[in-house]
């Protein structure tokens, strides 16, 4: 499977696909029934975005089910396992804030991603709001929820630097400004939540690169094994 790798639809589509998959793992496990419905809504929005984006890059199912791990271009943040609810919310906060800013920029641009981005930015604004609402409640909730939320933010912090690595084909995106706005927004939310902005490095010291270069974390291989096994077991079948 050789996707048209030049298109930025591929990395953005992979982000949405993999995060949607992780959120799908919450089905039946959410802390309260109302949150089952909320997490599924977000997962469905993301899956919808992934399908449009991957279709711009090739055949959606071939791209999702027949690529090897090293061919996926999603950032490592989205492939991180769910952990507890705080961990999932921290991942959502970091990613949806980024995604809203990025889609907001793309929506006003003249690439072929503009129509998708214009729709996605509304969905993403809701995802970001959901993450912020919960960040505030967990940060400013009980001692236990505060500890869990802070720990989650700290743990995932080292995956946030990669969000602002330039993506091929998205030359017009002012990545530096995006990062500054992102940091301001996250800082504001964490202040409201009585939480502290993590201080450590925002990426690992591995010089080879990250998800955008097809270098992933160990849990990602298992995610793909689970996601792809049925499709791959029946070559050429339609579903």
């Amino acid at each position: 499977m050789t996707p048209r790798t030049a298109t930025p639809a591929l990395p953005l589509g992979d982000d949405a696909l993999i995060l949607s998959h992780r959120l799908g793992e919450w089905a039946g496990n959410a802390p309260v029934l109302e949150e089952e419905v909320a997490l599924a809504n977000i997962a469905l929005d993301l899956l919808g975005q992934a399908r449009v984006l991957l279709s711009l890059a090739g055949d959606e199912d071939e791209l999702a089910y027949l690529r090897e791990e090293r061919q996926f271009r999603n950032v490592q943040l989205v492939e991180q396992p769910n952990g507890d609810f705080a961990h999932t919310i921290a991942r959502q906060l970091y990613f949806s804030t980024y995604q809203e800013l990025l889609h907001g920029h793309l929506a006003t641009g003249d690439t072929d991603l503009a129509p998708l981005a214009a729709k996605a930015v509304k969905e993403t604004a809701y995802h970001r709001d959901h993450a912020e609402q919960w960040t505030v409640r967990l940060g400013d909730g009980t001692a236990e929820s505060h500890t869990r939320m802070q720990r989650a933010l700290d743990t995932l912090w080292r995956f946030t630097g990669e969000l602002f690595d330039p993506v091929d084909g998205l030359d017009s995106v002012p990545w530096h400004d995006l990062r500054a706005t992102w940091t301001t927004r996250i800082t504001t939310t964490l202040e409201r939540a009585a939480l502290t902005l993590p201080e450590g490095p925002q990426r690992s010291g591995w010089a080879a690169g990250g998800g955008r270069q097809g270098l992933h974390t160990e849990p990602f291989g298992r995610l793909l094994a689970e996601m792809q096994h049925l499709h791959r077991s029946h070559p050429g079948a339609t579903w």
Partner: protein
Amino acid sequence: MTTAHPTEPTAPAAAPAPPAPATPPDWPLWEVFVRSRRGLSHTHAGSLHAPDAQLALRNARDLYTRRSEGVSLWVVPSDQITASSPDEKDPFFEPAGDKPYRHPTFYDIPEGVHHL
């Protein structure tokens, strides 16, 4: 925990009290009203649990409008609704029954008179 349910309120006072819950009480109950499209009024859609108004509104959006059923939402704490009682049904609603002169069909208008 038993929360009074307002528009469709709960057991009469004689109903046996439920046993005290072993875990902390559930989030309070909210009534959800959905405006299905502009020009129509909000209609009661159901209820849900939420810790506060902001999350109640979001939960309502996710639960009651996921098939595009609405353009606007109200959420109201269930215990803030005061309902008429079935025991007062007669004094409340029967007096309206014998005033047919409130309805336009009460009046005879000659044939050929229009726009009335």
